[in-house]
């Protein structure tokens, strides 16, 4: 089952640069939340703070709270590693581990965390995750061939399977289809709609149609000007946001007046 996320007064900084200002939003469980906005508006940065991936970047930090089922991810006794096990991530560019087979890629999360599985457990997990990612039928006969031998769309679904295999409660996706052709994009969108039964999904996209097609909630980020922090302009149910935006800025963006 998915879990909801509660973001309260979050501010994100890169060193002295204030990147994202004062975001408060609730991400509903077992729903798809899309984050849209022009390039450089901080939506990916914001997404990365939801599983503390921004901390990989030197000097990046944030203030405020992110609550997963009521527990603050930035709390003192919270282990970074546990956060990322709970909240999985799929990246813009498919990044299967090049030294691993398809099977090993799916099991990578388990192995990297020192967990041991019996062969049947591993087999079951691989099949379950690949079926979850809608890839099983295409790769069932070549599980031992390298992950990077697959097509771009298949690689991205392999990455989703890899994230899914960790049984996270939330899945973050950072423009997962921007490097894919329309057919593969459709396959991933269908998959995401399936996945929300089990996971809470947050997806960053610069494709408004995609947000409108498959998300339940949409947040619109915008930046006032160069060097200024970006902020969450509007957050609402997707239908509401696209048909009846409350802010003028949102209306301009979705009707294509700028950005």
């Amino acid at each position, binding site marked *: 089952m998915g879990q909801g996320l509660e973001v309260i007064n979050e501010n994100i900084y890169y060193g002295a640069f204030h990147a994202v200002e004062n975001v408060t939003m609730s991400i509903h469980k077992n729903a798809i939340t899309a984050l849209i906005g022009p390039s450089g508006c901080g939506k990916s940065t914001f997404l990365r703070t939801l599983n503390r991936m921004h901390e990989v970047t030197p000097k990046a930090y944030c203030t405020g709270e992110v609550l997963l089922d009521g527990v603050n991810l930035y709390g003192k006794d919270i282990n970074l*590693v*546990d956060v*990322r096990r709970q909240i999985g991530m799929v*990246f813009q560019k498919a*990044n299967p*581990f090049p030294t691993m087979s398809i099977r090993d890629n799916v099991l*990578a999360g388990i192995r990297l965390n020192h967990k041991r599985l019996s062969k049947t457990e591993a087999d079951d997990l691989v099949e379950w995750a690949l079926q979850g990612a809608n890839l099983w039928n295409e790769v069932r006969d070549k599980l031992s061939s390298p992950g*990077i031998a697959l097509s771009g769309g298949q690689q991205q679904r392999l990455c989703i399977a890899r994230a899914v295999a960790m049984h996270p409660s939330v899945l973050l996706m950072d423009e997962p289809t921007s490097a894919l052709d329309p057919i593969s994009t459709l396959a991933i969108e269908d998959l995401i709609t399936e996945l929300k039964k089990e996971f809470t999904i947050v997806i960053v996209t610069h494709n408004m149609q995609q947000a409108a097609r498959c998300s339940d909630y949409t947040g619109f980020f915008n930046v006032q000007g160069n060097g200024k922090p970006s902020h969450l302009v509007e957050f609402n149910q997707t239908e509401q946001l696209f048909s009846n935006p409350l802010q003028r800025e949102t209306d301009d963006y979705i009707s294509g007046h700028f950005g």
Partner: protein
Amino acid sequence: MQRNGLITSPIRSLRSRQYHDHAMTILIYSTACLALLPLIAILWSTISHGSTRFDWYFLTHNMKGVVGGLYPYGGVLNAILGTLLITITATLISVPIGLFTAIYMVEYAHGGVISTMISFLVDVMSGIPSIVAGLFAYALFSFFFGPGCINGFVGAVALSILMIPTVIRSCEQMLDIVPRDLREASYALGATKSRTIINIVLRSSLPGIVSGVLLAIARVIGETAPLLIASGSVSFTNLNLFNGRMSSLPVYVYNQYAEGMAVCSASARAAVHPCIPGIRMERAWAAALVLILIVLFLNLIGRFISHRFSVSHL
């Protein structure tokens, strides 16, 4: 005139550009051949000179009790084993230091003051003349263990001073080209930094690291000057790195060459096992051939390992 110029000038310039292109092609091909020429010449002369004395007897005997050009003719076993021991020890010292430094530089330092300093020192170190490294190692051990401390281990330390910068630089490059995405993918799965470095970064760059290390070995295995000072040479086979002088192939070659022609009396030349005046040059060439074969063998191993663990692209 104007019209004529417009029509003819592009054609003329096209022709001249084609000539230019041909000329460049010929130049590049001939330069490539020129670069190959010394390599082939070296290989040819080593094989042709070295094969005179290169046999099983030569490989399995040392120089104990060998006098001038007289029988027994002696061999290179002491130098082969010495070179292998010293080089392996130097590698065992250099690889951990070099690899961990490279990991520090790429994964931990993020361009701080310390990493800038290390980077500068590595550049300086890679320019150290090898004889200085030999003198340094000799002085270092003499300081701690008394003057005249010459043994295989001192030589290995001298060689590792030369190897470490090469190992750091090549490992650094190899770690650098592992895409950021892969590290992030691993972190996003909840892997710790050390797990990510070991299982993803090092694993992906293993073939490159192996060939880098082998290049570094090939670079120092032929070093003569530092070993001449730090390890010396000895006629019998010494397998103890910490006790007494130890021969090595380059020093062996140098010594044989330096001793020059042997004096052979007429009666000795007519013996069943004749005295050979030019035997020392023959030994020098044969030892050089052994050295080249060892380097070749190392390269083959490196290629095999790189191939075995390479990222399979389809």
